[in-house]
């Protein structure tokens, strides 16, 4: 790990003067360089569109049942078929995007705040702060992560908020460790010494010297863990935690459709499961792409 943050900017050859144009230019450069990342980016736009506008564009109400149309295979009218209550699966899958994306984003932002900040403080101050953060991270890591998430949701109560919290807690060690290592190598860097000598307080240095340098690496971490966060949340709702029926959510829809898999009505579980897979796949590819840009040495 070098002491100079390999930020994304130096890659773009000619840097336009204004911030927004620079960002646009850089994004275009990155996507042009890497086809797979460009593909993942396109998928992300589809997912974001479904999350934002899904409920307004779907052909059917995701909650209205129509028992005459129950368990019909995919057709022109119902692209993904209908479930046991005659609800349109396509509409439900699209509408569910918002809730699944919300859980993933909220938990990742939450763990970024908890783990990232705790890790930066641990790496910068060392001593007791470091020991306490390290001990918390070790204790969480002593559990199989999904099992710990189950225990947390079972204990704190069966709600969506607790799914977000549990997903954030099990990811805490990853963020804390990355942030700690990055902050630690920078705490005696030239720019930090200079800031300290000119009379900046520790907190000011943390906020204006350390955090901006550690930020890109944490953002990569966020996109790498986003896929895991979605899987974790969907797994919890698959076993009946958090989201309640009839709310459309991918994990619970797969759980609902599971019983029909053995009698051949595959579309019930297949489409929500496939949506889940595509979303996770998209975030994993994006994460890898971002990581290659920000920190090319960790490429495998």
């Amino acid at each position, binding site marked *: 790990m070098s002491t100079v943050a390999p930020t994304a900017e130096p890659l773009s050859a000619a840097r336009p003067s204004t911030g927004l144009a620079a960002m646009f230019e850089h994004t275009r450069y990155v996507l042009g360089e890497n086809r797979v990342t460009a593909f993942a980016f396109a998928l992300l736009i589809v997912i974001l569109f479904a999350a934002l506008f899904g409920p307004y564009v779907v052909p059917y109400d995701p909650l209205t049942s129509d028992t005459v149309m129950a368990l019909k295979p995919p057709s022109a009218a119902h692209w993904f078929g209908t479930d046991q209550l005659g609800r349109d699966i396509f509409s439900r899958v699209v509408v569910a995007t918002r809730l699944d994306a919300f859980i993933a984003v909220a938990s990742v932002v939450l763990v970024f705040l908890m783990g990232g900040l705790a890790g930066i403080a641990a790496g910068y101050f060392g001593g007791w702060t470091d020991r306490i953060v390290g001990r918390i991270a070790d204790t969480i890591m002593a*559990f199989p992560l999904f099992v710990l998430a189950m225990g947390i949701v079972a204990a704190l109560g069966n709600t969506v908020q607790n799914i977000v919290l549990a997903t954030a807690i099990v990811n805490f060690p990853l963020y804390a460790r990355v942030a700690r290592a990055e902050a630690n190598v920078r705490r005696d860097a030239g720019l930090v010494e200079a800031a300290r000598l000119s009379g900046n307080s520790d907190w000011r240095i943390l906020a204006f010297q350390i955090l901006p340098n550690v930020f890109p690496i944490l953002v990569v971490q966020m996109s790498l863990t986003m896929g895991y966060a979605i899987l974790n949340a969907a797994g919890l709702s698959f076993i009946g935690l958090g989201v309640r029926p009839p709310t459309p959510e991918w994990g619970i829809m797969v759980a609902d459709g599971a019983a029909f898999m053995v009698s051949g009505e595959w579309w019930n579980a297949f489409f929500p*499961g496939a949506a889940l897979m595509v979303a*996770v796949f998209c975030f994993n590819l994006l994460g890898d792409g971002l990581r290659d840009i920000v920190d090319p040495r960790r490429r495998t």
Partner: protein
Amino acid sequence: MLTMIGKRLMFAIPSLIGVVIVTFLLTRALPGDPAAYFAGPAATKEAVEQIRKKLGFDKPLIEQFFHYTNDLAHGDLGTSLTTGQPVATEIRNRLPASAELTLLGLVISVAIALPLGVLAATRPGSWIDHLCRITTTAGVSLPVFFTGLVLVYVFYYLLGWSPAPLGRLDVFYSAPPTVTGFYLIDTLIARDFEAFRSALSQLILPAATLAIFSLAPIARMTRASMLSVLASDFVRTARASGLKPSTVIVTYAFRNAMLPVITTLSMVFSFLLGANVLVEKVFAWPGIGSYAVEALISSDFAPVQGFVLTMAVMYVLLNLMIDILYGVIDPRVRLEG
């Protein structure tokens, strides 16, 4: 060697203490009055009071904690609300089913992932390298319950090759006399080959599901670490000395490339033990995972707590084994210890 093992054991103790504290705190974090919770919804006020006294909720937190650890030391994990059975007995009875499933899944995944990773690293850019890349990327993106359901649809409904995903043994066979608790081994000991075949055919799909899930990190790490070992000086020297390519790869490169892979196993176990719960639900597998899921649905917390504790203790022990194995394989670690 012994000092190294002793040192590793010492490292495991803080983890175990942490695990016990966390599982203790989880019960005390239950919403509302835990005594009313354990007494059940139909309990009278007196019954709740009685439970409170019995479970020691009227005492200070630290005393409760000692009470809890004392119970644990006596192998008491509490009693299930719904079945009225002691949790510890139930978990002990169901543990072999989960262990058999997880171990077979791990064996299948290692048996596929190691050759795949090695072949991909020795032939970069070939079709097997691409296959390796596709499997590793797809493997981490597939929700494990989804893979399981697709396998059930294909192999049970479409092809009819595998039996219905309902438990460990077909209803026509009776369970073999318990020796190890693993049906595959027990049926062989009882020389009941029909039952062995039935147990195997029930086991193969859930184990394959777990294997597909855990294959990705192992193959990915094998490939990466083989690539870096193959580029190192001692491999170049071995090649220059005219050793056979197979000797270079197997004796020189592979053994050194295994070290990071063994470290990855720790993460793989974390995934496997979690995925195990989901796979058990899909295949109605009578293990500890489905026990915990059933308890979760009926808001019965004692089995969940026992389950979380058992899983965490097993995970700590597995990590300990990985550490020791690492020391056995890598003499440098032994010298430091």
